[in-house]
């Protein structure tokens, strides 16, 4: 049974909604970009209309009129990636893309733990360690991996979910760290450029609402 239409529900922000939006854009799939205000969200939450009382949610209207609701930004990204062949050409390539995505997620989780640590001293030390050790180690791995593929992207076969996640994660980290991609990572810079200039993505980047986070 075919998917008829997509509605991506999130707040008016990039946050955890942006990877699903970027994936739908890369896949060339039109979608309703539904952004809710706080008060609307409070209502939605208490009505139990989302799978886990969380956003984002992707509502997939099927050809028989029924609606399949998918929660969790990375599960949404995987679904779109698998459906539109943006997840690696075979199980081994798929595993490679997946493992780099998970590495990036781990890095963001570590960063957020530090960033929101109420202990000021621990936070300061944590940020220092992150900038000097954790972040370079992580971005170094991405740089090495993309330096060795035929495509210059995460997967040999072309642009995938992995590249979208690199783009989105570095977007979050640069704005929260107050820095841009370090100059010492030329392959990563090339990857970002490739993502930004993909026709569907650049179209989305031009038209998406400008938000602080």
């Amino acid at each position, binding site marked *: 049974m075919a998917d008829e239409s997509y509605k991506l529900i999130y707040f008016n922000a990039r946050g955890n909604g942006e990877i699903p939006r970027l994936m739908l854009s890369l896949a060339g799939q039109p979608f309703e970009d539904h952004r809710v205000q706080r008060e609307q969200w409070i209502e939605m939450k208490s009505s139990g209309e989302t799978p886990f009382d969380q956003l984002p949610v992707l509502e997939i209207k099927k050809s028989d009129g029924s609606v399949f609701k998918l*929660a969790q930004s990375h599960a949404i990204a995987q679904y779109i990636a698998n459906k539109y062949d943006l997840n690696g050409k075979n199980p081994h390539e798929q595993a490679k893309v997946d493992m780099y995505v998970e590495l990036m997620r781990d890095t963001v989780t570590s960063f957020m733990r530090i960033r929101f640590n109420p202990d000021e001293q621990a936070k300061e030390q944590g940020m220092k360690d992150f900038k000097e050790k954790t972040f370079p180690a992580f971005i170094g791995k991405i740089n090495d991996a993309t330096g060795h593929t035929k495509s210059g992207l995460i997967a040999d076969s072309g642009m995938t979910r992995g590249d979208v996640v690199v783009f989105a994660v570095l977007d979050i980290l640069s704005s929260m760290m107050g820095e841009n991609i370090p100059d010492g990572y030329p392959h990563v810079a090339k990857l970002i450029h490739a993502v930004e200039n993909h026709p569907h993505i650049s179209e989305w980047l031009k038209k998406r609402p400008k938000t602080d986070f």
Partner: protein
Amino acid sequence: MSKETYKIVYFNGRGRAEVPRLILAVAGVEFEDERLEREDWPARKASGETPFGQLPYLVIKKENGDKLKIAQSSTIVRYLARKFGLFGKDPHEEAKVDMYQEYINELKEEIAKVMFHTSDEVAKAEGEKKLKETTLPAFLSKANDILGASKSDFFVDSGVTAADLLLFHILQSIIAIRCDGDKTKVIGDYPNVMKMYDGVESNKSIATWLKKRPVTPF
């Protein structure tokens, strides 16, 4: 891509390698279960043998002898679960299994945050209280609803998947470490979760694995 053989490399514990091991157990696939002692880890890490300098990793030996190494436990789980039919029978079921795993991993993150990443004693005690009184009950209630709506005793209609194995693994640790092995203390009020738990535990291949796996503190 047909015959592959597998080696899972981890510490001598359940931790982040246990769900991959459970998947291979359910699938009836023999694998090399390499367990490193703490003292031996620094040398392995420095050797460049591991994909990301972390454990666990999966070594896939292909039919032609080539080796592929996969890091990140979630990736290892998805790879093996897909290969051995434990990830749902169609794209929509697959998406559900993925979504449920993400939700269960969020609970795991909350627990880990309180247990391992909160140094202040007062904050830690508050965190544990919140886990016990709010987070865990809310999660179990939602899981109970989802399981109740499924046609099978498991998260999705078609039967047991990696999502059930993941929740089973987490609950098993909580029950053993925090509740003296008495599962009713944790899931007694959630009959559908209990049915899932019992269903996994009584699966013949899982029961065999549970009997033969090393007994470890984590």
